[in-house]
């Protein structure tokens, strides 16, 4: 690791200022991705700004929304009865990220800000249209995710919480890479007030995406069988050492059916 300075600010304003003033400053949430990146010397920050002292962890209900603080860990989300009741699929998704030790440290906000194309949360956030609240504004997921490892966050802008709307039926199905547990393909399917929503992670060349053809089919008939003949365009798919584009396109169909079946429970 290259050496760096370390600061643990007590206020969001101070944290934001440190990050806005210095282009080489980096935010540290749970560190489950960032610390391995530092260890590989893939990043050389001037200062690491630890967000652990800002009071951004916690889960609360706000009317028809479950609001989850950015520094809430995967383990806390997985264990939350409130999440389990109001946002089916989300707790299970969080409970299958990495391993228990990773889930004790890794955070919702850190994962979203990193926008790894194989991360699980982006699928849930995009499928449920959960608004991402920052210290400056509220961002819709359609505007937030801008491709692999790219987001709409500006310098000094920090996610504070994510607002998940209550949903009647939803589930997530993941085909995990057996070593990393990242999604080779992950599909979050939901039957929302605005219609069926299907978001796919792990598979797309530009990160998470909505599967419009599947949503149309499920709007008519929210069953796994409705997806029987729905195609996933090959040219949208990522291919790498873990699986070709064709393999991933096939898996999208399989995982989507499993997600719909689980949502119908």
């Amino acid at each position: 690791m290259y050496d760096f300075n370390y600061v643990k600010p007590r206020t969001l304003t101070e944290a934001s200022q440190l990050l806005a003033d210095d282009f080489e400053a980096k935010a540290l949430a749970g560190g489950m991705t960032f610390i391995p990146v530092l260890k590989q010397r893939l990043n050389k920050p001037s200062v690491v700004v630890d967000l652990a002292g800002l009071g951004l962890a916690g889960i609360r209900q706000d009317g028809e929304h479950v609001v989850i603080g950015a520094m809430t860990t995967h383990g806390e989300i997985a264990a939350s009865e409130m999440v389990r009741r109001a946002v089916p699929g989300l707790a299970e998704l969080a409970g299958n990220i990495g391993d228990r030790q990773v889930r004790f440290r890794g955070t919702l906000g850190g994962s979203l800000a990193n926008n790894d194309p194989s991360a699980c949360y982006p699928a849930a956030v995009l499928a449920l249209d959960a608004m991402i609240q920052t210290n400056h504004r509220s961002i819709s997921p359609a505007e937030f995710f801008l491709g692999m490892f790219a987001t709409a966050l500006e310098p000094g802008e920090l996610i504070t919480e994510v607002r998940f709307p209550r949903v009647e039926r939803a589930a997530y199905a993941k085909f995990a890479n057996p070593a990393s547990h990242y999604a080779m393909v992950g599909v979050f399917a939901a039957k929302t007030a605005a219609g069926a929503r299907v978001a796919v992670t792990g598979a797309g060349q530009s990160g998470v995406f909505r599967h419009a053809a599947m949503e149309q089919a499920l709007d008519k008939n929210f069953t796994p069988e409705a997806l029987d003949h729905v195609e996933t365009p090959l040219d949208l798919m990522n291919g790498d050492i873990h699986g070709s584009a064709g393999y991933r396109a096939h898996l999208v169909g399989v995982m989507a059916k499993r997600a719909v079946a689980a949502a119908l429970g």
Partner: protein
Amino acid sequence: MPQINLMVNKKPVTADVEARTLLTELLREQLDLTGTHIGCDTSQCGACVVTVDGKSVKSCTMLAVQADGMEVTTIEGLASPDGSLHPMQAMFREHHALQCGFCTSGMVMSAIDLVERHPEGLSEDQIRAGLEGNICRCTGYHNIVKAVAAAWPLMHGKPALEAAE
């Protein structure tokens, strides 16, 4: 150089560390607690698992400065001062839950956290899934699972399981 104050195995520790010092480096290199192992150094294998504020974490993927003000327990902190073993350690010995022993300290730390968080009981499947973050390259998992199952009643004040075959 940042100065940190933390409790390690119930003893107060003050240490000067670089910001980039990993918790595992602080433990092994400055505090001579070499029971915590470094296996993969990429947060996959779990040989470095310790408990921080009651949660099992991979100490190779946490900065020492992040542990400032926290309570850390390592494998060295489990046995009683009179030398009697923690029930998990005793069951690892009883069931010969190790081959080369490299993964053992991390396995024991993870297993204790797993058992403590499941007072309602733990199935074999739950034990296997719960230890997914710990890799044994000798593939000695069967006896590890047996040891964890045997430690559960001892840690929750229940009658011990029947002695193994």
